[in-house]
């Protein structure tokens, strides 16, 4: 059963549409990866399905419900979490408070989840009383993902989680993404490091010009010479 299905989505920021018919479907507990050149509408797709801009045509179905143009706060309650690429922490608040804000709409006792986040991201444990703005880029990304996981989402949207990170942190974030997925959370992420990302993806979506160019399993896209040629910078590697 699919957790998310975007059908022929058109959307934009008020002027001309940026998305001109995006189709995506991923199953529960799967990793979906969106790749493509700059301006292809990758981040816009995430924002459109998270209700941050208006979908003018097409539909978004999440967890069996039509959530086209739903409000972000309702989507959060429904089990969808979003980690934006930039400005994704509360810089003046402590690491712990950042995580608490992720659980803002929860009414139950979520302390065990904070503990779980420290297990996912051990470097955060010692820094829990430090303002998130003082952390390194990689640790800040951990806080951002941790905040989004506090709602125990069914699907986690990640917008370029490794952008601007050192290779060491990049590998660490990819490892965490796999671990989070293994714990039963579906993931849909936009990624610049297309090869690495497709390698861990169940589903891959290559966007160009606001619509799907290729849609397949991650491995099939990596093996596709045309995709490799146009979007992965050179011949397919095995």
């Amino acid at each position, binding site marked *: 059963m699919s957790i998310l299905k975007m059908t022929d989505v058109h959307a934009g920021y008020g002027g001309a549409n940026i998305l001109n018919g995006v189709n995506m479907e991923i199953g529960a507990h799967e990793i979906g990866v969106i790749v493509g050149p700059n301006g292809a509408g990758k981040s816009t797709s995430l924002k459109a399905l998270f209700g941050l801009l208006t979908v003018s045509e097409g539909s978004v179905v999440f967890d069996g419900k039509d959530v086209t143009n739903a409000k*972000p706060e309702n989507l959060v309650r429904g089990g969808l979490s979003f980690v934006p690429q930039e400005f994704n922490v509360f810089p003046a*608040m402590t690491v712990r408070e950042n995580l608490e804000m992720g659980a803002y709409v929860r009414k139950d006792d979520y302390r065990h989840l904070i503990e779980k986040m420290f297990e996912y991201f051990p470097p955060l444990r010692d820094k829990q009383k430090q303002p998130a703005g003082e952390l390194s880029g990689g640790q800040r990304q951990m806080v951002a993902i941790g905040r989004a996981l506090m709602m125990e989402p069914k699907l986690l949207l990640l917008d370029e989680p490794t952008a601007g990170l050192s290779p060491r942190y990049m590998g660490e974030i990819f490892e965490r993404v796999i671990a989070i997925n293994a714990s039963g959370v579906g993931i849909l992420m936009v990624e610049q490091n297309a090869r690495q990302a497709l390698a861990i993806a169940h589903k891959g979506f290559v966007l160009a010009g606001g619509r799907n160019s290729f849609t397949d399993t991650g491995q099939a896209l990596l093996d596709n010479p045309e995709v490799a040629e146009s979007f992965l910078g050179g011949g397919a590697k095995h």
Partner: protein
Amino acid sequence: MEQVGFLSAMPINEIVFFINKVVVAGLIIGSVYALGAVGLTLVWGILRFANFAHGDLMTLGAFIAFVLTMVMPGLGAAVGLPTAFVVMPIAMAITALITIGLDKAFYQPLRKTNPKPITLVIASFGVMLMLQGLIRLIWGTAPRNMYVTPKEIYRIPFAGKDIIITEPQLLLIVVTVVAIVALHLFLTRSRTGKAMRAMSDNADLARISGISTDKVVRTTWIIAGSLAAAAGTLLAMDVSLKPDLSFNILIPIVAAMIVGGIGQPYGAISGGLLVGFTETVAVFNWSILLRPLKPHLPDWIELPASIAFVPTEYKIVVPFVILVAVLIWRPNGIFKGKVL
């Protein structure tokens, strides 16, 4: 024994004069500025505009307290506190409600259009003029006394002299301390308080986290409105109640907010005290402190009767100077607030 010897060698008259004129006076006016600036800075942090009407909310709160005092003048005597102080919580609640009403009527419709901050500033300017007009229309322009009975004056003996503090001044200091502690606990412990800080810190991410903008905005206005009413009431109790009570201190309050770093409640409190003390230090007549030195000075030095940095009537330049200096050398304020 040695203590007594030390004290008797000190120019007690002058020291007590200094305490009364600078320490006490600075603490009083600084507390008023702090209470005003906290509300102003919270509104800016959440709604991203300078609310020019904030000063007149203080005046309005004071007039509401005045009306309540006139309605039940005997209330204070029953509990042994000034009536205006006893009814202050009611005035705070009413002012908070009015503040929310003003938001619903003027700012909320504007926010829906996604305006530039300056649009909201100008709107608040309109609300300010409207409030000033309404206050004059309803209560006239004559100064009024918030006290039904004479003010208590406390004399604290200090080495044979008295440090003088009046009842409203003492209440003002107590209320400021209580408000600061309560606000601190609210912002750091409560779910809504943390949501407020989150929204001030990163509004988009707060929304993505499911924090309700409307609720945070409402809470902000409640805090700003009730603190404004408290500051206005206590100030009117200390001096007297006039329609321009707080409009006159809007500039120092804005200075206090910017000095403390916009959006930083603790900064606003320290900024308020800093501006308050600087004002009193600037208008203080230092000649009086130098007088005991006179016998030790050579004859050819004449002490002028008045040595003040700024004459009292030009006191308003002090916050302006602080404001300009901070904007030039530390535009984010002491507590690293938002960039203007």
